């Protein structure tokens, strides 16, 4: 058995398709995602230029201006203000030099020329200020003794507020792309499974025929091939996780053993799906690879690999697909581990994945254990 496994590993390590699709391709794609999303994040936090038109010299106006300057000086560099006359401000807005105009008078107002992230940021700032101002005024009327303490606390509010998930972990918007990518990598184990079928089914290759007429028990041949394929593909996924965590700096907050468990079951699904599909009939090699690629990509697409909202759209209109799509289940399990602590949902996904992997593994085993063939 060790003899078989030693050479099975060697063969797989030197096989281009086996190494490229399940291991290198996900690493390359992860790197491309990283650079693409990195630029997107930078664009999101570009400083927003805004004009400020002082209409009166009231204390309310002064407080608002102080608020704006505080935000401007913050390390996040969210906005850059410039005090202008009204005509000059309107001209700057029209030419696109500024994204909006704050009118600081008795009544505060914001004028923008379009709809977008920058305009939303300016509006949010104004609303935040007005909400805070209302809160302080209420406290001044109802609990004047706490006014100073309230002011101090509110001045620090930006540091106190942090977007978190229900489980208190990250809600990095790009994470779901990477979870879908991990799911895709798991399913790409089908390429490893494809090779496994070629080495076991005498009706597919002369190599398998030669193995089948040796005195080595067919079960041993199958076990060795399947174990090495499962194990090596699991290692592929672990390498991908390490790469995401330590090279691309992805923020995995969940516990590692559960992530490894999902990866292991996902790997089994990918590999056994490859064996199962490759063992069916004598379809041309190209057609079988096309089917495997098609299934993996469609599943990954529906899990949100290309469009981040896709999994939610599917959940809204046809939730059953999310229950039977292995890529969606793997991505969801990762999301459960790293974003929201929802043990019920996690275990449900894991249970479905386990049932799938057991069924596929048994199916693929029965496909390759045939000993005599109708035609070769």
């Amino acid at each position, binding site marked *: 058995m060790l003899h078989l496994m030693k050479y099975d590993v060697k*063969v797989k390590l030197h096989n281009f398709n086996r190494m490229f699709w399940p291991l290198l391709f996900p690493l390359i794609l992860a790197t491309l995602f990283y650079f693409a999303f990195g630029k997107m994040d930078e664009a999101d936090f570009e400083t927003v230029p805004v004009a400020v038109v002082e209409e009166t010299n009231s204390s309310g106006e002064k407080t608002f201006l102080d608020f704006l300057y505080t935000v401007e000086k913050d390390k996040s560099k969210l906005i850059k203000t410039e005090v202008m006359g009204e005509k000059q401000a309107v001209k700057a807005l029209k030419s696109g030099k500024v994204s909006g105009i704050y009118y600081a008078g008795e009544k505060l107002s914001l004028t923008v020329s379009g709809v977008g992230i920058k305009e939303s940021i300016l509006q949010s700032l104004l609303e935040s200020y007005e909400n805070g101002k209302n809160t302080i005024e209420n406290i001044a009327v109802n609990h004047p003794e706490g006014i100073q303490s309230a002011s101090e606390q509110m001045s620090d509010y930006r540091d106190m507020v942090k977007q978190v998930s229900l489980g208190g972990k990250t809600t990095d918007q790009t994470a779901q792309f990477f979870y879908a990518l991990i799911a895709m990598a798991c399913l790409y184990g089908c390429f490893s499974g494809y090779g496994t079928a070629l080495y076991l089914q005498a009706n597919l290759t002369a190599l398998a025929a*030669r193995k089948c007429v040796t005195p080595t028990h067919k079960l041993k041949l199958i076990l060795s091939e399947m174990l090495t394929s499962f194990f090596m593909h699991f290692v592929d996924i672990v390498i991908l996780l390490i790469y995401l965590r330590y090279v691309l700096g992805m923020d995995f907050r969940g516990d590692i053993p559960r992530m490894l468990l999902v990866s292991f079951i996902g790997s089994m699904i990918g590999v056994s799906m490859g064996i199962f599909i490759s063992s069916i009939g004598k379809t041309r090699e190209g057609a079988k690879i096309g089917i495997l690629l098609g299934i993996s990509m469609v599943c990954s697409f529906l899990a949100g690999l290309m469009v981040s909202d896709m999994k939610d759209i599917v959940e809204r209109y046809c939730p059953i697909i999310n229950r039977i799509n292995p890529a969606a289940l793997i991505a969801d399990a990762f999301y459960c581990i790293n974003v929201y602590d929802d043990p019920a949902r996690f275990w449900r996904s894991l249970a479905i994945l386990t049932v799938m992997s057991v069924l596929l593994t048994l199916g693929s085993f029965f496909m390759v254990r045939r*000993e005599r063939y109708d035609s070769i």
Partner: protein
Amino acid sequence: MIQIENLVKRYGELLALDHLNLEIEEGEIFGLLGPNGSGKTTAINCMLALLKYDKGTVRIFGEEMSPDNYKVKQQIGIVLQNVAVFDELTVYENIDYFCGLYVKDKKERKKLVDEAIHFAGLEEYTKMRPKKLSGGLLRRLNIACGIAHKPRLIIMDEPTVAVDPQSRNRILEGIKELNRQGSTVIYTSHYMEEVEQICTRIAVIDHGRSVAVGTKEELKSMIKTGETITVESVALSDGQIAAVGALPHVFDVKYKEQVLKVRCTRGKHNLMRILSYLQEEEISFGRVFSELPTLNDVFLEITGKELRD
């Protein structure tokens, strides 16, 4: 050693093996000769219990052959028509891998692998991968993988297809050497020269049936043709062709593109008689040669078609 009785294999409507009967003795190099599609490979795959068959029995070493008869499989080595080696492993690793499927002991295996490498003349290529080897070397590796464990029975299915003459000779000599060392060999081919050169007994296969079995001499004695005489660059009228056909011992005359082919039964002076006729008629001619019957003649007479079709 091997008994095949009434073996029938159908692929849908196509009858690939039609009540095939064969008996092979220990120590033979037994040839299965037939054109492509005659059922040779199907017969081999049925013998090896790779293919399901509709009817019949296959017994090897006195035991019925089945996929789980590992005792019998232990004593068989196969060399398939298509090269069956791992592109990802080196020459040495390939032989070691396949030998390891038969021989568990590491020391013994190493000795056997080294001997197989020497036998196939692959000493200089042990660290190379198959893709770097020429067609001939690849075939030799294919053979080394099949015989490294020194099997009692070696089944070779067209091992010399697409091989250069030098490698082919080496392979054929190697097969004779394996036979001298004690292995029984079943050798399928559609090259009659190879079968004539190495096989001690031959079965002629056509449409899945064994149409004749015997040594090459026995097979040739079964047929009418004793000699084929060819006369080149000769211009003949229809009357003259008919006259040649009427000569004693002549039973078939073919005339095409100024080449006259005359098949005669066994008899003395056949060539002289034809040449005398041409001289009498003052017909000029080019090269003249006479050939003893070949296995192609055997196949032609028994099946009515050329082996090379």
